[in-house]
């Protein structure tokens, strides 16, 4: 039963993670096409105004990448944006802090630093030193907002539990949260972690809600692509990896470095594979969430950009494409709403699965018997 469930879960994970990647790949094609059409358009209208051209890749990568400004909207080609604080660690100059407005949108350098806009917005030191950028970027600010929201929601709900006592029916937001908490506990914690699930519930719940709320905030217009950033997913995967390593028992390490009942020759083959697979687990976690959310953002932005790409070709085509593009982007938004929850669930569930493998006791089959016998 458990293996069946795991299998279906894996199948679902695979289907879900492959679908957006597929569209992502398709998009890449579209993107190339867009580039091509743009190039031809630019070629044709080279002697006319060049600023009419709509650079979809710049728009899309500007949105999905991190930034030192929170771009809100454009007024007469002038971007209206929030300048965020820049914090830089320079190996010789130490920590410096100033507002990103000092860069004047990348047009000027400040204090020996300047903004470099490639596929990603980066601050570089003019003296070529390897600086570390600890700026409160758009992603960091978005995360702070989500953290405040998360703390506010959870603490107010927890207060309600304390105030109302245990035997009072939940009210308000408590009602919305309770099924999710019990779902994580009963469908993620208990099946994967057995009777030790209570120990890991806080981690699983935090991971789930942290990812979910950030996924949702990222879907808001103007929102940051926080969970679609590999630094974020790497951090989350690292946390679950470390928790897994610190909780892994003798049985787990024994099976990893000295698989029982395996001939010595095979051991030389098996142990490195097992060792690599240990690290593949968090990497899979990291890539899955990153790719799914990034792909979702790119698809939505691409669909919206189509209007402007067609608009650049001709006004009629642009307006004509509006309903198609809108319908598709609305569909994508609903899909992404689902994906936001599903990816949070998958990340949490896989964390639980990996933890479950790490804390699993010897003897799979008569697990319960062995436990009953020992205690």
């Amino acid at each position: 039963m458990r293996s069946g469930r795991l299998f279906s879960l894996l199948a679902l994970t695979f289907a879900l993670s492959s679908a957006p990647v597929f569209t992502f790949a398709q998009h890449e094609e579209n993107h190339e096409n867009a580039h091509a059409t743009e190039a031809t358009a630019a070629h044709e209208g080279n002697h006319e105004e060049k600023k009419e051209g709509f650079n979809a890749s710049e728009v899309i990568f500007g949105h999905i990448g991190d930034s030192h400004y929170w771009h809100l909207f454009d007024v007469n080609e002038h971007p209206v944006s929030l300048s965020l604080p820049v914090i830089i660690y320079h190996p010789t100059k130490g920590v410096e802090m100033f507002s990103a407005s000092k860069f004047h949108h990348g047009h000027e350098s400040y204090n020996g630093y300047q903004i470099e806009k490639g596929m990603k917005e980066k601050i570089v030191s003019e003296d070529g030193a390897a600086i570390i950028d600890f700026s409160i970027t758009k992603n960091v600010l978005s995360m702070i907002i989500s953290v405040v929201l998360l703390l506010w929601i959870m603490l107010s709900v927890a207060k309600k539990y304390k105030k109302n006592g245990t035997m009072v029916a939940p009210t308000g937001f408590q009602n919305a949260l309770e099924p999710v908490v019990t779902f994580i506990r009963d469908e993620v914690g208990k099946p994967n972690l057995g009777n030790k699930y209570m120990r890991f519930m806080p981690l699983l719940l935090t991971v789930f809600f942290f990812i979910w709320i950030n996924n949702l905030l990222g879907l808001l217009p103007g929102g940051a692509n926080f969970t679609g950033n590999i630094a974020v997913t790497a951090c989350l995967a690292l946390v679950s990896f470390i928790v897994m390593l610190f909780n892994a028992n003798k049985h787990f390490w024994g099976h990893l470095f000295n698989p029982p009942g395996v001939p010595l020759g095979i051991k030389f083959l098996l142990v490195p594979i097992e060792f690599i697979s240990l690290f593949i687990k968090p990497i899979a976690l990291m890539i899955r969430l990153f790719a799914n959310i990034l792909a979702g953002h790119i698809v939505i932005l691409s669909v919206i950009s189509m209007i402007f790409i067609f608009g650049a070709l001709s006004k009629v085509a642009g307006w004509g494409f509006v309903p198609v593009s809108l319908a598709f982007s609305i569909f994508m938004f609903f899909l992404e709403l689902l994906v936001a929850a599903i990816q949070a669930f998958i990340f949490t569930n896989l964390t639980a699965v990996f933890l479950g493998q790490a804390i699993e006791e010897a003897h799979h089959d008569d697990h319960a018997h062995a436990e009953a016998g020992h205690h």
Partner: protein
Amino acid sequence: MDLLTPELGLFVWTLIAFLAVFFILRKFAWKPILKSLHERETGIAESIASADRVKKEMGQMQAENEKLMMEARAQSAQMLKEAKEMKESIINKAKEETKAVADKMIAEAQQQIQQQKMAALTEVKNEIGKLAVEVAEKVIRKELATADSQNGYAQMLAEDIKMN
């Protein structure tokens, strides 16, 4: 690709924020929430179990009550039956007794009547005997008042003897 290289700054901020959220929520949100959920669940399970138990007990009690009622009913029916029988037997006995007494009294009365009758009859017989003797005396006195008659009578008696 640039997108695949994680920035250290964002990584560090995320780590700090995530750990802060984790520790705060663990202490102030998840533990109380999970605890009260658990308590509520066990409370509900217990209430359901106790309700079931009470229901079962009620059923048992009802069955017992019914049994008791049946018994009482049977007992009362039995008692009624017995009372009826007793009544009948008492009546019958009384009837028999009265009949016996009456019979005895009648018998005694009859006996007395008989005795009285006999006594009266003897008395009457005695009186009649006396009267007859007196009458016979008087008749004889009158008839034998003369000598002739005395002779005649003696002759007649003698003839009777002779004839015998």
